[in-house]
């Protein structure tokens, strides 16, 4: 099969990579770059488990062909914070009990991140709209919404919701 060479920034690191034209962005991230925090729940753009931030926008990485990501800047959950230095949103998810099985969590946190970058003080309706592309089958959403509210307070204290 023909291979294509693409170049992209993933979590602030430059990556050059050879892929087949039909490789999806999610496969590139998981299989080639071992960034398995990006999850596949449906492969159809329905669940949001595969959410990443690409060029400042939320995308379902199962619907993006890897060649389309040539030259793109991408943030995955691994680019947000680490165990010894958690992002305020990650902390808020832990403290609010917003994590059960955790399979939706990476996508949910990135959706929250994107929302708060665009609108640092969303009301409840805006929060709900901000995570409307992300399904959670465990929590019933209430604690996720609480976690995002807690993040708003934390972020406005620390860095006014600036992107890292």
């Amino acid at each position, binding site marked *: 099969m023909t291979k294509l060479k693409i170049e992209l920034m993933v979590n602030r690191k430059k990556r050059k990579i050879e892929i*087949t034209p*039909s490789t999806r962005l999610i496969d590139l991230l*998981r*299989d080639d770059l*071992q*960034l*398995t*925090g*990006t*999850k*596949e*729940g*449906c*492969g*159809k753009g329905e*669940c949001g*488990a595969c959410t990443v931030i690409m060029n400042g926008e939320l995308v379902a990485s199962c619907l993006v062909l890897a060649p389309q990501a040539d030259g793109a800047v991408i943030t*995955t*959950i*691994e680019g*947000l*914070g*680490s*165990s010894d230095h*958690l992002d305020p949103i*990650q902390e808020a*998810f*832990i*403290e609010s*009990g917003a*994590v*059960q*099985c*955790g*399979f*939706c*969590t*990476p996508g949910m*946190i990135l959706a929250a991140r994107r929302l708060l970058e665009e609108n640092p003080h969303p009301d409840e309706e805006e929060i709900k709209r901000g995570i409307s592309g992300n*399904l*959670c*089958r*465990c929590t019933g959403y209430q604690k996720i919404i609480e976690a995002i509210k807690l993040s708003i307070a934390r972020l406005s204290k620390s860095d006014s919701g600036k992107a890292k």
Partner: protein
Amino acid sequence: MSEKYIGKDILKVDVQDKVTGKALYPDDIYFKDMLYLKIKRATYPHAYLRKLDLSKAEKLPGVVRIISAADIPQVKNFGLMIKDQPVLVGIGQKMRYMGDALAIVIAESKEVASKAVKLIEVEVEKLEVISDPLRAMDKNAPLIHQDGNILATHYLEKGDIKMGFAEADLIVEKEYRTSFLDHVPLQVEAGVGIYDKKSGVITLWVATQWLHDTQADIAQSLGLSKEKIRIIQPVIGGAFGKKEDISVHIHLALAAIETKRPVKLIYSREESMIAQSKRHPFIIRAKTGATKEGYLTAWQAFVIGDTGAYASSGPAVVHKGMYHCTGPYNVANVKGVAYTVYTNNTYAGAMRGFGTTQMAFAYESQMDILAHQLGINPAQFRLQNAYEIGSSTPNGQILTHSVGVKETIKEALNMAGWKGEAQ
């Protein structure tokens, strides 16, 4: 201990890994030299398999091996309660629903495995497809399994049902139907397997809700001792009952033994919908009697649970549902019968509530209809019939502690600010 933990916020042990994306779910486990599996599934819901032509698929570059039933004559059926599920359907054998497995394709990549599955040619001899449990119960219906389409019948009797209806001023009799429901855990079925030639041990990284039962079932199916099956439970992306049944497990084990290489199998969401368990659709006929003062006197329940092509936990789910036919309400005279019935639908198994959620639709509807016809406030009607300490359930259990239904109803009314409909 209690002072240290109860009433305190305790962090989940793996929560840091979950928020940073480090937690490893089955699909996140990779090995060098790993092969990918894809399952060829049934092409018709009820049919004899007459021909399985693997030749085109085997020729596709990147295909390592294709396993069909002919390769594994020693392998036995599996199943949670009854061993009625074949690992692979062989020539001359029956496929009973669209999820039955016909062949395991093993390839160097996911893409090749998916392509190869489409190149497998199947010929079948079609049989009548039974999608309605009432048809399955007909005397002249074709048999899905040898021993008959009614897999289990359970009875329930408390008090004197005739007397109970004689005491009633009002009797309401209705039929209710519930539908199939998928649990949709956010992660589909997935796993990785490795076979160690020296020790003969198969290690599987795969989700299960019944670690030891799953281990025993895999072992009996493969004809190995339990010590040869090691299951490592990774982080699970939701289950809700759906991961009680075997899915990728035995196919992974067979492919690992066959290739001596690490193997991975991930279902697509569609495959998970088609092949893996569902909530049982119920047909419930409820006949309920009450006095004009609004006290229940008799409750009769006739329940059919469609367990689909295989038993799974069906007999337990359906008869447990029947035991809850009156809901949390006192009834002195109860009679019930429950049938667990095979059809050619996707098999049904455990799901949150284990049969009781379906029944709730019927009994709460009955309560509303009765209250309405008696001209009594439906909340009051429920309160005056609700369980309390000392109540006995339809199967005769005396409730001795933790009966919160009355408080729950009152608190719900309070929170909803509901004042009643016909006051």
